[in-house]
């Protein structure tokens, strides 16, 4: 883990001014973005637009670079080339204070919730409010209860994260992600490891909160069925490139081999079953020593 770019999270007038978003610009815009860890390429030539108020899914197999896209949008990583814009602002060009200021407008739901284990459910949701606002305690209490009510867990406010089921933890994390009424919420594998009921609940919450709060949502997932039910648009990523995209109807009707393999869950296809290796016969009959 690297150190934060500058050891400060103080709020300055310049930072606030530097991260004023353009209301006419798309919520997120990636243009010809490439990223590599040292020399290992992860993303190549990614171009995508996420309009305001929509839910867009980024789908792909594990290790295809989906989460890296979220990290680029959040400014945790810088692209090797190309542009990453949020509300018209170039994220990699923001000064650290402005980047922190911009992140106040984000919400993020991590794969397993990432709830603070030493705080209760209530304290977890109050955390961003206490860190970033001067609201009185009575108001924070009311806001936390409202957020918890929205995800159906007002009665669980006193519980500790260890006492929650996987689905409940994900819903609490969702309530925390919307604590400060963000403009953009990013979901990293929100459906991973959930039972069918919890999965449906989380999916419907993502859709409902997006519409009610007029936010924009980016959902990174490999759960094709749940995504097709709730999203407005899908991008398919494989090997660090966008290989297909479309609305749920277009995706369902698609004849693209990759999309078909993904939807049908076929073990072999454009995404091969075998990891690259020498010919099986040659390796079996090779001289040892």
């Amino acid at each position: 883990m690297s150190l934060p770019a500058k050891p400060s999270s103080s709020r300055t007038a310049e930072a606030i001014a530097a991260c004023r978003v353009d209301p006419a610009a798309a919520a997120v815009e990636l243009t010809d973005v490439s990223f590599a860890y040292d020399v290992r390429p992860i993303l190549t030539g990614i171009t995508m637009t996420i309009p305001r108020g929509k839910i867009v899914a980024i789908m792909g197999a594990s290790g295809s670079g989906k989460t890296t896209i979220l990290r680029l949008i959040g400014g945790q990583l810088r692209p090797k080339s190309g542009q990453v814009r949020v509300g018209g602002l170039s994220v990699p060009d923001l000064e650290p204070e402005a980047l922190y200021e911009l992140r106040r407008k984000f919400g993020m739901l991590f794969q397993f919730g990432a709830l603070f284990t030493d705080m209760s459910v209530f304290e977890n949701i109050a955390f961003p409010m206490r860190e970033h606002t001067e609201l009185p305690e009575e108001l924070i209490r009311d806001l936390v209860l409202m957020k918890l009510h929205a995800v159906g867990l007002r009665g669980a406010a006193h519980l500790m994260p260890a006492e929650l089921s996987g689905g409940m933890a994900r819903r609490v994390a969702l309530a925390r992600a919307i604590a400060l009424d963000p403009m953009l919420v990013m979901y990293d594998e929100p459906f991973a490891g959930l039972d069918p009921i919890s999965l449906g609940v989380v999916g419907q919450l993502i859709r409902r909160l997006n519409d009610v709060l007029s936010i924009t949502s980016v959902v990174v997932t490999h759960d094709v069925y749940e995504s097709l039910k709730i999203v407005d648009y899908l991008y398919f990523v494989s090997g660090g490139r966008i290989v297909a995209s479309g609305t749920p109807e277009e995706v369902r009707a698609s004849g693209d081999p990759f999309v078909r393999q993904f939807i049908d869950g076929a073990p072999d296809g454009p995404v091969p079953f075998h990891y690259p290796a020498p010919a099986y016969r040659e390796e079996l009959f090779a001289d040892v020593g």
Partner: protein
Amino acid sequence: MSAELTAGIAQLLRRIGGTVTGAASKLGFVSRFLLAVLWHTPGAFRRMHLTLREIYFAGVLSLVIILMSGLFVGMVLSLQGYETLKRYGAGEQLGILVALSLVRELGPVMSGLLFASRAGSAMTAEIGLMKTTEQLAAMEMMAVDPLARVVAPRFWGGVISMPLLAALFSAFGIFGGYIVGVPLIGIDAGAFWGQMKAGVDFWPDVTNGIIKSFVFGVAVSLIAVFEGYDAKPTAEGVSSATTRTVVMSSLAILALDFVMTVFMFRGASVV
């Protein structure tokens, strides 16, 4: 020179070079890390409840092991010391032997080692697990700097706790020495306390012990929070980081103790 030998030497040189540059790079990272933690110090003290919470976890919860160890170390020191002093007819000097040994050396060093094992390893494991479970990343995405919210309060909690624990270790050690020396062995209580009072000076004995324990507190806390923050986000990574904290802290305490003792007590008389 054969080609194989040349290749072997080249590989060895590459490895040495890699190790040296890796160590230099890590040292640079630790220095930047320390500067960043110091930068956030005013914030850690402004939100004192965070630092107080860490003083509780690092200090108060270490009390049992520190006090019990201090008591037994003092008792053993008293037994062994009396046996030696008796040979020279100086059994009455037991109080000064116990007090100086504890205040100058054993108090800071032993409590430092115990602190590294109990509180240092806990700090590393906690921060490492927060990293593994993406809690630190979540904080960053909420525009909250984990160095300010998580690392700086833990660092200062450790630094503040360490001298207090060392003082309590020494106090309980002296009490243990008294229990063995006076009621058990039968040394006169007046002689025990009187010799101690006459032979132990606030400067340099007590103050140097405090300085030592403060330095150990900085070293152990820095190693503990750094190893946690730098841990690989896996179960094995956190386990290795915790082990490294205990090993590195122990070696740092012993090495720093030697260096400080050389400078602090050079030419100092015992009585």
